[in-house]
């Protein structure tokens, strides 16, 4: 609302500057990446050429025909969906207790819930890897789901707890006086009112799971092959192959973009996210 003059003016400059920065840091890199996915292997793309010698869709065709890649997409989507749902289900009671009930050692519980975000993923992955061998969970989709949930559950608990904190106690008390037991209050009052938290936490969990690399790599690879694992194989693990990496990159970005489009249509998610992560 604050403006140094009649409305308009400097805001156009701000807008132009921000979008220019966005184009330079996001659009240009992605465009160059996309060009790499279209390089014709017969002519290549070598310095000092500014554009590939020829364009071809052969990398895309090969990728889309590859059962490994299609399998990777399905595996990734499945794991991320289950991880998100699992986190959401586990988070509700704990988030409620943290948000609404006084108890001793609350600070300690809060810090413990935070800890998986603080300890580097590589360390968690290696530790969990050792454990999962003993439990027979290594190299299995359930194992990957569990280890990824270690990373997403803290996010979900914190964000949902912040959303529940914002629910007036009176509403919960009113529901109790109207005859709802604790479980029904949770399902019929708290969960629906905490939905902005679920939206934000769900989006963040899904995306975190979808792009997770270190823990999945250590616990699941090579049997469980998510998209990021496949990407690593084309980029770093054994070889850096730009065209293949570019194709996998854009296949990976497609669902992510869909999720984002969805997220931007769901209001208030951002506020809930900030409330959850804004103070640790």
């Amino acid at each position, binding site marked *: 609302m604050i403006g140094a003059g009649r409305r308009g003016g400097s805001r156009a400059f701000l807008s132009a500057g921000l979008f220019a920065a966005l184009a330079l840091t996001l659009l240009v890199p992605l465009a160059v990446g996309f060009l790499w996915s279209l390089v014709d292997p017969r002519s*290549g793309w070598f310095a000092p050429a500014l554009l590939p010698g020829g364009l071809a869709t052969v990398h895309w065709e090969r990728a889309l025909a590859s059962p*490994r890649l299609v399998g990777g997409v399905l595996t990734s989507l499945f794991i991320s969906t289950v991880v998100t749902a699992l986190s959401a289900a586990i988070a509700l009671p704990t988030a409620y207790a943290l948000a609404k009930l006084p108890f001793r050692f609350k600070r300690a519980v809060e810090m413990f819930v935070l800890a998986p975000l603080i300890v580097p993923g590589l360390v968690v992955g290696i530790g969990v890897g050792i454990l999962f061998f003993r439990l027979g969970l290594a*190299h299995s989709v359930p194992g990957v789901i569990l280890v990824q949930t270690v990373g997403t559950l803290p996010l979900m608990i914190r964000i949902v707890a912040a959303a529940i904190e914002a629910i007036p106690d009176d509403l919960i008390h009113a529901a109790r006086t109207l005859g709802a037991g604790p479980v029904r209050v949770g399902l019929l009052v708290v969960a629906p009112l905490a939905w902005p938290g679920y939206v934000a936490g769900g989006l963040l969990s899904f995306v975190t799971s979808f792009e997770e690399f270190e823990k999945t790599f250590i616990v699941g*690879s*090579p049997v469980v*092959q998510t998209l990021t694992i496949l990407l690593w194989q084309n980029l770093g693990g054994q070889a850096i192959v*730009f065209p293949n990496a570019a194709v996998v990159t854009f296949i990976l970005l497609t669902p992510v973009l869909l999720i984002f489009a969805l997220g931007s249509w769901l209001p208030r998610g951002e506020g809930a996210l900030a409330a959850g992560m804004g103070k640790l």
Partner: protein
Amino acid sequence: MRFAQSVSAVAVAMMLALPAGAFEPVGASSFNVRTNFDPKAVTHQTFEATLLGPARAGGPVVFYDLAESFTPLFTEIVIPAFERATGIKVEYRQVNGDQTVQQLIAAQRAGQPLHVDLMWYPNGQVRLGTETGIIANIPLSSVLPNARDLDPSAARVSRGYEHGGTVLPWHRNLTAIGYDTRTVRPERAPRSFPDLLAFARANPGKVAITNPARGGSGQGFLESAIMAMTTAECQARLFDFSFGPQDAEAWAQGPCLAPVVAYFRELKPHVEFTNGNTDTLNLIANGVAQVATVWEDQVFDFIGRGLLPPTVRLGLLSSGQVGDGDGMVIPAGTRNPAGALLFANFLMSDDVQVRKLGLVGSRTARVGVNVSALAADVAERLVPQDQVVTLSRKRIVATASAEATKRFVADVLQR
């Protein structure tokens, strides 16, 4: 494919042949794999007849591939052909070799073996794999009919470690010097270590060396330097499989490597060390590196896929350069050893061995395979045959190589 015919040919032969040369466990009194066939009954003659039935009963063969560039060869050519010929499914997975070895060890310790039947196995880890018992003690080199004409230097030794044939040398490769003829005429390409230093001084930043800690083309380069610069006394045990980690550490920290360290220190300010084999190749493609340490098969493959300019050529330094190749092993936890044996044998067939050279530049360890029929434009992507004959060397023991790499990191990179 010729394979289908060979199956029936062998079947006919089997009826006539007598059992000969039964197969025995390596380095132990019993096999460390569970088999649903009698190993004693498997000979070159009875091979397929004995194994086809148990292999088909054993379910799909799970195959781990550690190389990025071989994926199309496996998934589009070799595996479909094998499946057509035998009716046995192969589940293909691309893996990180070193990581998988650790997983096999961990799985073995936990008593929950990882399900993998045949694995392309990193040759630097053969000692560890043998000592921890994750490699099946089946002498593949002598069991497989198609391995009967292996180069003796490759059949039982991998990077100086004598494994007794448990590792099948299905792939041979050379570390080499690559140069881009757009900027370096072939006669000006460095042919010796002093040449290379002079070239780097004259063209700062134009030589790319793979960090020996991050890629075999760099580690091979380091080994070649050791072979070229150290005394005979220092090299005495470099092909001795009993050269353990402690021995290697003492050797690497001792005076032997001083000239090598001195050479690399001189080289260091003028060259760019890279983060891996393909990182180096991308620097050539970017027009930055004119001369670089490379693997022969990767250069061959990258040119074929339009990832390197076709102007890149290969050569070996006059003091010799080392080469080797990761081999196939059957992990001890296999659930279908019969299928694994059949697939491994198929990989060693003439046809597969020839095609992999033409497709991905992977040489063969079989002396009886005729590879002279390569087209000229394909052959020029490889190291010239005369240099292969005179200048290729075996790699030194992996323990020595690893310790030399540590010395390199501490005394060359760290300063």
